């Protein structure tokens, strides 16, 4: 999509710029660009990931019950999303439905993970790009303006000017930076209460959890959650103030990191009342999730059906260090509903690593493959993104208008069709607060960042509801958290979940009781 008018190629004076390694992210990423400084445009950009470990290779022939322990190690900040997703896939393959209390415990764990990760990522990694120190170095004029701009929500967060907020984000010395580190600890304590330890969980199993569900467990969690609430009520308006300032102070900033609206969300937080992990009923329990699955193209919700989402996934090559699997074995010809499954679908993928020289001009240049989503309407292979995860989650949920949860503890999330209303309960220090995330005009850098902070509020509100549900079961004496299962000789399974940064799927094929194929697709590929 041409967002600006094209400048003829011969008129350009291109400078090559690269950043490798990129800091304040997780993983090995390099960015190589050609920049036209006269026209202030990036003309070409290649991203390269320079690490290969080969999970789908070394999992072959292993016991399927080891899957979640192993795949958790894929990532050191969102590993629990993998463990959860793997348990979902295993549950489908084994035909087991965990007891409801186990599902609320997993939902509480995952909610804490969103709160933790978005908190540390936004405030300790991303926000360093907006902090006073960095703005002073890169755009001193902007800082001068920030000094003179009153923060609209000063009464809520206590920072008089935008520059005061920026100063609070200075690494290791700023108040908000230091508070965020503390909040990232508090929320991980909440996580550990449910999932044992962070980031690779100890108490997750296919069939349920090993967490001991006592009243104490939920009080320990809820108390911390309510302490976190005060911070959420302050940090959302503080972020809004900074983002709105950037739009106002730097006209055209809405073009920064702007993409066509091509968003994918695979749904999050299972509803144990509906979810039985059967593929045959996957569309129903997918839509019952407390974050709605969906593909959003140009602002339109194309589907909310997990089966359609599943069948559309295609893994392409072209710029990556792999040999194609065109002539390899097909593992799954048809899904359990009889639909044909494509050769390029993760169920049928074979990873054949082929290390080679990096060629940034003609390729290949990366260890990352190229997943696309096949749009049946047009025959296009869409390069969906997740907008950092939160943007796609809120966008799809808002459009679908399905989520409506209310806790008698005074928290709630409601999708309206064009927005998501998030109600946070009254706490000792602050009154009940309602935030409304409205569908933005752009899928760009600022809106991705803004969505991330709103999703912290979403997770906090949802967690209050989950605690209430879990406590209800404990009060009723229904404390069972694990259901036994048998591993079949042959079987397939798939798990769909929202990792912190967005879409996550795990596809599993079992033969002779061992893993014949396992392909996790997280949001970053």
């Amino acid at each position, binding site marked *: 999509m041409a967002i600006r008018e094209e400048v003829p190629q011969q008129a350009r004076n291109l400078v090559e710029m690269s950043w490798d390694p990129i*800091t304040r992210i997780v993983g090995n990423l390099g960015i190589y660009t050609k920049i036209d400084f006269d026209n202030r445009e990036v003309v070409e950009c290649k991203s390269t990931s320079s690490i290969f470990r080969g999970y789908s290779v070394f999992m072959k022939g292993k016991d399927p019950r080891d899957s979640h322990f*192993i795949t958790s*190690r894929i990532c050191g900040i969102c590993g629990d999303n993998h463990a959860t997703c793997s348990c979902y896939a295993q549950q489908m393959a084994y035909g087991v439905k965990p007891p409801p209390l186990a599902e609320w415990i997993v939902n509480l764990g995952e909610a804490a993970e969103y709160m933790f990760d978005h908190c540390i990522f936004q405030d300790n990694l991303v926000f360093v790009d907006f902090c006073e120190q960095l703005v002073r170095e890169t755009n001193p004029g902007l800082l001068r303006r920030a000094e003179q701009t009153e923060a609209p929500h000063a009464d809520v967060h206590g920072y008089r000017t935008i520059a005061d907020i920026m100063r609070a984000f200075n690494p290791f010395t700023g108040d908000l930076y230091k508070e965020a580190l503390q909040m990232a600890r508090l929320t991980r304590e909440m996580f550990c209460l449910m999932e044992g330890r*962070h980031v690779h969980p100890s108490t997750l199993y296919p069939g349920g959890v090993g967490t001991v569900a006592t009243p104490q467990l939920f009080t320990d969690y809820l108390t911390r959650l309510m302490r976190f609430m005060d911070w959420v009520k302050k940090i959302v308006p503080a972020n809004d103030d900074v983002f709105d300032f950037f739009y106002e102070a730097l006209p055209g900033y809405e073009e920064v990191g702007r993409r066509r609206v091509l968003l994918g969300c695979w749904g999050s937080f299972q509803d144990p009342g509906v979810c039985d992990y059967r593929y045959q009923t996957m569309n129903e329990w997918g839509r019952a999730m407390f974050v709605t699955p969906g593909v959003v193209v140009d602002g339109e919700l194309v589907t909310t059906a997990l089966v359609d989402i599943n069948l559309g996934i295609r893994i392409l090559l072209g710029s990556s260090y792999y040999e194609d699997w065109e002539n390899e074995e097909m593992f799954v010809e048809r899904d359990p509903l009889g639909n044909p499954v494509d050769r390029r679908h993760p169920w049928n993928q074979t990873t054949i690593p082929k*290390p080679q020289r990096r060629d940034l001009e003609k390729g290949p240049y990366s260890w990352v493959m190229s997943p696309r989503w096949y749009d049946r309407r047009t025959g296009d292979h869409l390069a969906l993104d997740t907008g950092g995860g939160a943007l796609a989650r809120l966008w799809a949920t808002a459009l679908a208008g399905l989520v409506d949860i209310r806790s008698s503890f005074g928290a709630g999330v409601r999708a309206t069709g064009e927005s998501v209303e998030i109600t946070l309960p009254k706490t000792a220090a602050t009154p009940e607060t309602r935030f409304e995330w409205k569908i933005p005009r752009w899928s760009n850098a600022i809106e991705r960042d803004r969505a991330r902070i709103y999703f912290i509020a979403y997770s906090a509100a949802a967690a209050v509801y989950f605690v209430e549900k879990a406590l209800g079961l404990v009060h009723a004496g229904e404390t069972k958290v694990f259901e036994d299962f048998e591993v079949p000789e042959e079987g397939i399974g798939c798990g769909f979940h929202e990792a912190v940064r967005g879409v996550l799927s795990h596809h599993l094929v079992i033969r002779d009781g061992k893993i014949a194929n396992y392909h996790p697709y997280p949001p970053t590929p």
Partner: protein
Amino acid sequence: MSENGGVEEVYILWISEGMSCDGDSVSITAATLPSLEDVVLGNIPGLPKVHLHNKVLHHSLGGEEFLRPFRQALDDELGAPFVLVIEGSIPNENINGEGYWTSFGNDPATGEPLTINWWIDRLAPKAWAVVAAGTCAAYGGIHAMAGNPTGCMGLADYLGWDFRSAGGIPIVNVPGCPVQPDNFMETVTWLLYQAAGLAPMIPLDEQLRPTWLFGKTVHEGCDRAGYYEQGDFALDYNSPKCQVKIGCWGPVVNCNVTKRGWMDGIGGCPNVGGICIGCTMPGFPDKFMPFMDQPPGGTVSSSFTQAYGAMIRRLRSITNRTVNKEPRWRHNRGELTTGYNPRWPR
């Protein structure tokens, strides 16, 4: 030089570009004893000033700006000693022709990616101390599983188990998948005290682990060990009892997590219902799989304890009933029966 003959400033050059997930970098942000801020801001008395260069946290714009101290270290231009921290397993780059399994920055002359092996070859001999963060860097870990394509290994497999740093220190392994937050920060704290001339050589066992952290087993610190001793075992994951029959390897695994908790005493593994899969051990993961089956040795020891445990439990429950009753002299009657002879007139 400080008055104790130690140094006043130390760089921590952290390369997480091994076969890693960056989980150890993320984990240490959870530490509180001491916290990252405590160390970086100089909150701990006696420690040298610390310059931490870790990709996940560093405020720089990335690329060459981030790599500068690493390049300076190559040219002996840092101006202070440095601790080299490696996170992730070390791949075998001798098997892959022109390609690379993992890289960290580029060669400024050729523009080609520099492998982590290239950096380790040059930086490790110059480092005052070399630390392996996590089981991957220590022993190979999950990515060195049977059937892996990269042939990866731990730091001591790569540099030699008898390697000595420029400071005369063996490789310091802090295993764990991920590393327990405070375990790592405490190891760093010891090394910083040692650099400042305020502590002796860090005590390490044969697997190069700090002895005060890894000298005991999971079982020895597990609050479910009482069930084990009474021969009372969980048969599925619903039970709050000892998990050795459903996959726990705690009795033979060196790790303090059950004793210490995961963060600030919260969480853990078998103490909170998560089987110990031996993620701190050189044999991890292969010698522990399938994780959810009973370890072979568990059958023998658990049948012994089951044999006498049932009797012990019965005896204890009798005593337990007795001590659940208050002594007879606690009552509200019109007489004192505690054994005291009152002097007031009746």
